[in-house]
């Protein structure tokens, strides 16, 4: 007697499962880890600014986050979902992304605690809502920011000596009352090429725009990246900062500086476009990118936050269901999404002009004051 199995199709499936996708991402993230080790460990070691401990500290830093996310994942899995298959590389990837956005001076204890928060939060969201609404990585990051504010634990475990003197470029720019100029905000770090290559202060592995872009292109070719999100986010920030710069007669270097600084590029590729916390529809992704870009600029220029990219990426996914709803309907009736695009374009123009004019006024005020001082 033959045993005919009944099951619903399809009866062939792609070989690419979540585990394989995670392994692919893990391999790519290892390239960023390698860059981080070179930038923060090897180069200072070769220039004899640090000893052997300094050479290995960056790798220890990333490993501590990775191991903690893996351990907590194993524990949570045993406690909450023992029958389900575990994807180790998923938690490892979260651990890597989480540690790469942190500054190297973050105390290891904070790193480890934050890593635990990342995984616990993910399980918590999944159990409670069946879906992840906020990026777990950024929840870990915000947890560390909180710990820094409380600062009851002594900070400063290690600093890359090459970065000690200046601080981050955006931090430097925020200390200047107007938009600054090339000499004041770019030249202290070398040139824009240094920004693109990543040899400027910032997160452990977020600074190399070139590497991030290359990885993004690879992932896009492999159809493993929601490429519209980083593309539209970066383009929006570029467009807005270009307009802002134009009010103060700054040339193209200014928007380039803005997109190459901070965690914008890395974040938009590996965090904003993170599958679970980003829209699934193409138009939803474009809208998400537009609003994310606007929010980044608002936070950068109108709040005390110097970067704003990560904070914006934490907030925007809350509206995913709206973006997806519009995006899904727009797949059949594009005109129904027009209002959302008009709002986005309006916000882009409004805030770019508003910030640009504010800075222009600020600049004029400074000029007047300088003239007054000169006259005196």
């Amino acid at each position, binding site marked *: 007697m033959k045993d005919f199995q009944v099951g619903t199709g399809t009866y062939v*499936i792609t070989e690419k499962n979540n585990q394989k996708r995670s392994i692919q991402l893990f391999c790519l993230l290892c390239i960023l880890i390698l860059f981080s080790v070179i930038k923060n460990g090897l180069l200072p070691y070769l220039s004899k600014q640090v000893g052997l401990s300094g050479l290995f500290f960056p790798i220890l830093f990333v490993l501590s986050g990775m191991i903690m996310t893996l351990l907590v994942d194993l524990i949570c899995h045993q406690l909450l979902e023992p029958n389900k298959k575990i994807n180790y590389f998923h938690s490892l990837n979260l651990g890597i992304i989480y540690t790469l956005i942190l500054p190297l001076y973050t105390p290891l204890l904070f790193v480890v605690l934050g890593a635990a928060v990342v995984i616990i939060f993910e399980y918590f969201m999944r159990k409670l809502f069946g879906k992840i609404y906020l990026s777990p990585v950024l929840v870990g990051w915000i947890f560390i920011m909180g710990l820094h504010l409380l600062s009851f634990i002594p900070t400063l475990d290690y600093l890359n000596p090459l970065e000690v003197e200046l601080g981050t470029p955006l931090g430097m720019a925020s200390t200047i009352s107007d938009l600054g100029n090339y000499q004041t905000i770019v030249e202290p770090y070398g040139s824009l090429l240094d920004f693109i290559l990543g040899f400027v202060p910032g997160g452990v592995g977020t600074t190399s725009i070139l590497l991030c872009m290359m990885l993004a292109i690879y992932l896009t070719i492999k159809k493993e990246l929601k490429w519209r999100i980083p593309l539209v986010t970066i383009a929006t920030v570029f467009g807005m900062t270009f307009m802002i710069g134009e009010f103060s007669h700054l040339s193209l270097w200014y928007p380039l500086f803005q997109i190459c600084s901070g965690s914008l590029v890395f974040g938009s590729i590996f965090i904003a476009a993170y599958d679970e916390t980003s829209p699934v529809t193409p138009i939803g992704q474009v809208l998400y990118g537009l609003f994310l870009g606007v929010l980044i600029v608002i936070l950068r220029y109108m709040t005390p936050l110097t970067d704003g990219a990560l904070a914006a990426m934490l907030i925007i996914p809350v509206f995913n269901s709206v973006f997806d*709803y519009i995006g899904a309907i727009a797949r059949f009736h594009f005109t129904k999404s027009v209002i959302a695009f008009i709002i986005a374009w309006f916000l882009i123009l409004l805030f770019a002009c508003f910030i640009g004019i504010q800075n222009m006024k600020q600049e004029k005020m400074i000029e007047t004051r300088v003239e007054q001082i000169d006259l005196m």
Partner: protein
Amino acid sequence: MLSVKLHKWKKISSKTQASIYNKPAYVYIPLISQDDDNITLLVKKGDYVYKGSIIARRKGNLRIPIHSSISGTVVGFEEKYYQNGKLEKCIVIENDYKEKYQVNKGVKRNLTKYSKEEFIELLKECGVVGLGGTGFPTYVKYSSKRKINTLIINAIEAEPYITCDSVLAASKCEEILEAIDAIMEINQIPEAIIAVKKTNTELIHTINNFIGTYLRIKLVLVPDIYTLGYEKKLVQYLKHVSYQKYSMDVGIVVNNISTIYAIYQALKYQHPLTERMITFTGDALKKPQNVIVKNGVLVEEVIEHIGGYKRDKKIQLIAGGPMMGRAIPSSDLVVTSNLNCVLVLKPNTGKEVSEVCVHCGKCVEYCPTRLSPVLIKEHLNHPKILKQLEPQRCIECGLCTYLCPSRIKVRDMVQEAKQKVGGSK
């Protein structure tokens, strides 16, 4: 919108020469046409029927006849599995092995000697339906009052494993080209396009050998990507036009290449559609191959005829291709005109368990009908939102389930939504 290459598994059945199975002791003609079981029965137990006799007819608008595929005696009625996975009532006819036609209408030397009305009536009475898997009555496509500007012959055969169209087209290329020419002449169609996948070199070579004298017939090579065989997508790719419901609305008729051969049989011999080539394939069959089979034959008999199964335990018998087909709980499946493939596999279900959806968006990105399957899945219990997501557009190509890295049976959920939305209308 992206497409996926699914070129694998074709060689399994195409490397063996096609065979014929034409000596069944009984045939079981299901009283169903294109999932419509509203059929008028025209014979009773004990009646003698000829090969090609009309034994039942569909009611309603599409009054297409159902023919006997053999000559013999009606011995009763039994339920057998139809390709929709359900048991359907069948007329059981005992074969007298005489292959007798009631009237021998002779051979038509010139296929173009038909008026358009005669042509449509012939297609209707010969029961010619789409052999690509839909079973849609072909005469309806030519009945449109709108002028037909282009005839597209779909020889893409997009699903993995299936090769019956290519094998038939390669062996009956002259007849097919003659039929296309006749259809163009009768219907005053200025242009015909045969769409073949770039990778199907054997068929391309054969067509190129014969096409020379047919100046109005063009051979167009298309990329080897899944869902390009889907009518709407093919029309869009070849003619850059889109339409809502039927391609006839934009002056285009699309026929499967095997359907063209069925039209040839009707034009040349006035023979109704009583047999077709079917791909019997899969890793659980000893000798996968294409077989010409009469309608109403049990699949089990054909499988035994071609060498049987490799294993007895845990096999999956699928009526249709691996993407759009359906697993049948028994080999008591009957062959019908719209069955193009019988796939026998070692089951893969259970090897990988469904995980939580990671929102990768692949199902949305690749959906040929621009649906948002993941959102449909999430809103299954929200009828208002579900309706706006238009799940009824789903063509059940299965690409969403194939691509899902979380191994979620997304298509099943969209089908569920389709039913819910249909019910709420």
